[in-house]
C-alpha cells in the first residue's frame, strides 16, 4: 500500500514519543514489523525533558509527561540520516517549535535530510508551562504555522492535532486549507493525573500528563470519523490501538494508516508484527484484499 506516495509494507506506524530517540530504535521497530516510524519530536535545541516518573499506568492506559526529551534538530537529523543509511524504511520526522518561526527553521533543516515526511507536533500537552496554550487549540495558529511551513518545506507535511481542541474537525479543515498534506490524530488527551493515595501525591513528577491507551480509542475513532468526512487529505490515525481489530476499526473510521504508541508498553515491540497478523487474519476472513479497502468504509446507522 501507499501513504502520501510512499510504498509502505503495512499501515502500522510507530507513534512519536515511543522509543524514537535513536536510529537504532527506529531501525529496530521497522525490523520488528512496523510500516513507518515517527521520531521523537525534535526541537531546535536539545531537551532533557521532565524528571521521572514520566509514565504512570492506570486501568485504562497510561498518563505520560516526558516533556519532549530530544537531542535537538541537528543531532536528531543525524539519527535520521543513519536510519536511512542502506536501510529501507519510511520515516516521519516530528518537530516541535515554540512559534511559527521555529517551525519554519525546523522544516528547513528537515528539507536537507533523508526523512520522508514532516510531522508538526502542534499539540504536546506536557510543556504548557513553558510554551503556553498548545497551537492545536487555536485556529489562527494552525493556519499560521501550517501556511508558514508549507511555504518552505519540500516534504509532505502532517499536522498533529489535539483532542483537546473545542472543534478538532475545524482544526483539520484549517490545516488542509493551509496546505497540510495529511493529519495525525489524535495526540494524547487531557491532562490527566494518577494519584498515589498512600503518598497523597500525583505519581508523575510533573503532576499531570497526557492520557493514552485503550481508554482514548473510542474518542479517537469518533474524531477521526468526523475529520474524514470533512477533509480529503489522508489521516494517520492514532489513539489506543493495541491489536489488529483496533487498527481495522480505525481505518474503517477513516484512517489511511495507524500509529501505535502505548501498546508497545503492554505488548512489547512484537505489537507491530502481531497486530499486522491480526489485521490480515480479519481481512482474509471477511473478504478484504488490501489494507486500503478498509479506509472509511464505515456505514452508520
Amino acid at each position, binding site marked *: 500500500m501507499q501513504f502520501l506516495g510512499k510504498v509502505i509494507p503495512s499501515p502500522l506506524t510507530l507513534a512519536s514519543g515511543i522509543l524514537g*530517540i535513536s536510529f537504532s*530504535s527506529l531501525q*529496530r521497530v521497522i525490523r520488528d514489523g512496523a510500516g513507518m516510524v515517527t521520531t521523537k519530536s525534535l526541537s531546535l535545541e536539545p531537551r532533557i525533558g521532565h*524528571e521521572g516518573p514520566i509514565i504512570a499506568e492506570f486501568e485504562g492506559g497510561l498518563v505520560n509527561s516526558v516533556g519532549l526529551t*530530544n537531542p535537538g534538530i541537528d543531532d536528531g537529523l543525524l539519527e535520521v540520516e*543513519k536510519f536511512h543509511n542502506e536501510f529501507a524504511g519510511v520515516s516521519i520526522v516530528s518537530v516541535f517549535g515554540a512559534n511559527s518561526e521555529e517551525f519554519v527553521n525546523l522544516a528547513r533543516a528537515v528539507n536537507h535530510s533523508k526523512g520522508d515526511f514532516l510531522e508538526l507536533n502542534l499539540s504536546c500537552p506536557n510543556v504548557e508551562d513553558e510554551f503556553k496554550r498548545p497551537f492545536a487549540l487555536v485556529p489562527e495558529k494552525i493556519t499560521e504555522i501550517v501556511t508558514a511551513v508549507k511555504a518552505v518545506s519540500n516534504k509532505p507535511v502532517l499536522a498533529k492535532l489535539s483532542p483537546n481542541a473545542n472543534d478538532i474537525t475545524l482544526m483539520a479543515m484549517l490545516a488542509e486549507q493551509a496546505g497540510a498534506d495529511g493529519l495525525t490524530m489524535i495526540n494524547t488527551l487531557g491532562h490527566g493525573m494518577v494519584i498515589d493515595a498512600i503518598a497523597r501525591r500525583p505519581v508523575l*513528577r510533573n503532576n499531570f500528563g497526557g492520557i493514552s491507551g485503550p481508554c482514548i480509542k473510542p474518542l479517537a475513532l469518533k474524531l477521526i470519523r468526523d475529520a474524514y468526512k470533512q477533509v480529503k487529505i489522508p489521516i494517520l490515525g492514532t489513539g489506543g490501538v493495541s491489536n489488529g481489530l483496533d487498527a481495522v476499526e480505525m481505518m474503517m473510521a477513516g484512517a489511511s494508516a495507524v500509529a501505535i504508541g502505548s501498546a508497545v508498553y503492554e505488548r512489547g515491540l512484537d505489537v507491530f508484527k502481531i497486530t499486522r497478523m491480526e489485521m490480515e487474519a480479519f481481512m482474509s476472513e471477511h473478504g478484504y484484499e488490501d489494507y486500503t479497502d478498509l479506509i472509511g468504509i464505515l456505514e452508520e446507522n
Partner: protein
Amino acid sequence: MKRDRQTLPIAAIREENPSLRTFRFDTQLEAQAGQFVMLTLFGEGEKPFSILDENADSVYITVKNVGPFTNRLFELQVGALVSIRGPYGVAFSLENKRVLMVGGGFATPPLRFLAKSLRARGIDYLVNVNGARSQADLLYVSDFEELCDRSLIATDDGSLGHRGTSVDVMQDILEEETFDCIYISGPERMMKAAVDVARKYGIPFEVNLERYMKCGVGICGSCVMDPNGLILCKEGPVVGHETLAKVQEFGVSHRDKTGRILEI
C-alpha cells in the same frame, strides 16, 4: 494493565561506607540477581537501582551517593515513604555449574546476590574476583569468602590482595582453570577489558550493563543501545556474549539525557 508500583517506608538503613548505604524494604518482589527497581523520591525524581538481595521478608538495594538524587535519598530516615516499582530487566542466568565472577568497584552488589542464588541452587565451583581502588572501597569481602570456593581480591593501590585490577587476576585464573561462564559487573572500561579476556579464552560470559534509564519499561528509548536497538531496561541489564557482540557501542559510547551520543 498490571500495577506494580508500591509506596512503602524505608524499613532499615545500613551504612556500608561513607558513600554507600543499603536500604531495606519489607516487601516481596521475587527479584533475581541482576534485576533492578525504579525508586521514586517524591518531589525529586525517579532512578533505577540494582537489587542487592531479597529474602522471605525483605528487599535490599545498595546505593552509592553520586548526585542530587542520592543526596536526597541519604537524607531520609527509617520510616520515610518512597515508591518502588519492579523488578525489571533480565537477570543473570543460573544454569552454569563452574562459574567465575569478576566485579569492580560499586557494581559488585548484584554479584553477591548472584553468588547467593547460585549456592542456593547448587553449584560445583564458584570463584569470585572482587576489585576496587583501595581496601576501603571493597564491598562484601566476607560475604564473598563465605559464598565462594575461592575469593580473590585486587586493589589498584595494593592495599589488599593483588595490586592491580580484577581483570589481571581474572587472566591469571584463566591460565590455570576453565569455567562454564564468566559473570562480569563493573565500570564499563573494566568490563570491556574483562570481555576481551573472556573472548580470548573462548569462555561464554554475561555482563551487567548500565545506561541512562528513565521509564524502565521499554518505551521512552533513553537506554536503547547502538546499532542493534537493544532496549537495555527490558532486554538487559544483563546481556550475554552473543547479544553483546552486536552492541557496538559497548566500551565506546553512550547517550546523554537528551539522546546525544557521548564517548566513554
